């Protein structure tokens, strides 16, 4: 008997091979069966997987660890895409929903459309590139450790709490490919509670947008030297023009202290 959950059938997706690529048809398939099929293809040795007709299935790529694995998603990737992922590359030809790269350890996610809220939450390594807009709470509590430095580049605009509690890594906001030309590039509370890492914004941000824990300045030549290779890679991944991205000066936002609450307490 076939069970239907939230409109999805609990059946394995149709699978076929095209050269060395495993192609999965996600049409109407529940996420558990889809991800199960991905995992068994990976353990059978597949290193190129293409998912067609994705329609909001969650957790694609979650917890996968094969470094040479490539997953293409055609359609809309559901929540928590690439969460806890450590190594693979995921490319979405469409939009992604909330929680992209949640607690991701390494690897790469490229989204050719827009993405939703809480992108890159607790991310500790790897890269997430989004061509268009992102939602609220993006880059919260990203952190870096030694050679592990997470990088998130958002090509459109962001909502409130961009980079809140940020503890490490690089978070970049370009404000270019946006559906909201009239809106400010970021919402309020940018970098609130930030205590590590750096945020680059193409253009200016107003003081009211920023948390009190950050300092704001125009990016120096040295900063741009750090940023340039990231943007090169971003433009290459999404087929964008680097010169156009660099045509405007960038603003650099860093924490004033890496111990923002160090003086808050008195010990009993």
């Amino acid at each position, binding site marked *: 008997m076939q069970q239907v959950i939230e409109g999805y059938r609990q059946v394995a997706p149709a699978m076929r091979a095209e050269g060395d690529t495993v192609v999965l048809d996600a049409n109407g398939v529940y996420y558990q069966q889809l991800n199960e099929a991905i995992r068994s293809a990976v353990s059978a040795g597949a290193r190129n997987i293409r998912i067609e007709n994705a329609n909001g299935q969650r957790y694609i790529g979650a917890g996968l660890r094969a470094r040479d694995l490539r997953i293409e998603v055609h359609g809309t990737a559901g929540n928590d895409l690439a969460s806890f992922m450590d190594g693979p590359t995921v490319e979405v030809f469409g939009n992604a929903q909330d929680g992209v790269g949640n607690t991701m350890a390494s690897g790469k996610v490229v989204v050719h459309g827009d993405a939703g809220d809480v992108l890159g*939450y607790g991310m500790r390594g790897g890269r997430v590139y989004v061509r268009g807009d992102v939602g609220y709470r993006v880059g919260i509590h990203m952190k*870096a*450790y030694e050679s592990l430095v997470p990088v998130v580049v958002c090509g459109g605009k962001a909502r409130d709490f961009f980079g809140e509690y940020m*503890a490490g890594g690089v978070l970049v906001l370009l404000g270019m490919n946006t559906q909201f030309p009239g809106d400010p590039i970021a919402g309020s509370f940018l970098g609130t509670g930030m205590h590590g890492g750096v945020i680059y914004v193409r253009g200016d941000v107003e003081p009211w947008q920023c948390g009190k824990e950050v300092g704001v300045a125009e990016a120096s030549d040295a900063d741009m030297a750090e940023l340039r290779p990231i943007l090169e890679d971003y433009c290459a991944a999404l087929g964008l023009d680097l010169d156009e991205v660099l045509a405007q000066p960038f603003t650099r936002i860093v924490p004033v202290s*890496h111990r923002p609450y160090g003086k808050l307490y008195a010990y009993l």
Partner: protein
Amino acid sequence: MPATFIQPEFRVKIDYDKCHKCGRCVQQCGWGVYDFNERPIPHDEKCRACHRCVTFCPARCITIERNPLAYRDNENWSAPLRKAVWKQAETGGVLLTSMGNPQPYPRIFDHLLLDACQVTNPSIDPLREPMELRTYLGRKPDAVTVEPDGQGGFRLAEGGGVSRNIELATPIIFSPMSYGSVSLNVHKSLAMAAERCGILMNTGEGGLHEDLYPYQDHVIVQVASGRFGVGPEYLQRGAAIEIKIGQGAKPGIGGHLPGEKINKEVSSTRMIPQGTDAISPAPHHDIYSIEDLRQLIYALKEASGYKPVGVKIAAVHNVGAIASGIVRAGADYVYLDGFRGGTGAAPAVIRDHVGIPIEIAIAVVDQRLRDEGIRNQASIVAAGSIRSSADVAKAIALGADVVAIGTAALVALGCHVCQSCHTGSCSWGITTQKPELTRRIDPEWGAERVSNLVHAWSHELQEILGALGVNAIESLRGSRERLRSIGLDEQTNRILGVKPAGM
């Protein structure tokens, strides 16, 4: 003006006639109480009454007394309240403290008594008869399907409905205490003890040090809002995964490990730079609803190959409804932490004034889940000041499946509940990262002591079950009929589902 108006809480007295002038007290004290000038000279104001010097003094010539300084009586303005005001007037800071709530709120466990058999229903001698403490942590099926095994018996049918449970030899596990708040040697002691006792330890939110990998089948790995040390490998190593929403000592408050405690090893386990504060935000920023919680539960299941996932919350006013939501979100267990639960550091105002007792929380959650017909879908783990095997038995009779112990395990390791863990200078080498202090706990010795405690409590539980005339802990679970209360009001009795003694 003197630097402070606050007078020392304790007085350290040395009987110099007996003193060997050996200097051991100087070396043992983590808080630098002693100077040495031909003989030890104590500075009372630094003493935290942890008794490390007293325990190690070969001449037994040290006594620690309460400073008898009288304050003009005032039940309303107690001496601690006056001191707190002075402290805040001096510093302007939030008062930080540690361990569980010490305030004189009623302790409900101490108002509950267990039943025993007399004459008509014989008790059982646990020394001669099997007495089952084995407990399974996790979701139980609504129904199972069985098929004949071909030898006259039955076996579980293929896909018969049983989900992954963790077998515990006794219904006691260790509560989450992070590496960072406690030392690595404490983590090792607990992990080794968990393996020996057939139970579980819990990483807390500070990641899993590789020295604990050999014990990973006995480790719950925790995922908190700071996501420290969390990666796919971490999730795949644990026996179960726990989402930390809250803690009984500080409901609604995030975690904050001060930069001083983030040394090299802690930093590599947490995967954050040395010396930065490890800040766990108060909420998980990807959880704003039960639906979001469900999303994280299943993200963790997907990333770990469908390990059991539990959710830890502080016991707060609306705990019944919250627990129901957690179970419906797909949690395999709900971990309830009462308002007396311990902490490595918390603002005193929160620790002392927020939350509800664990006894009430267990009863309310158990009842709510039963009323909704979903009690089988998740185990209840209860914590927040389980001080003895009697508390374990009472918690289980109220409806818990398993209890978790934190402070009790630390006391087994030498903790004297001096409430100074937040200073990072624990003389007993427990809640510190200073190498000269952490080496005071040898993991082998620690594992032995903690295992002894768990074994002793387990034997006592068997005695209690025998007296109750049952031969399995399952028979006591949720059996509130075997409890009576004394000195509790009618309303509390009703909430607990317990009759007063005599009824």
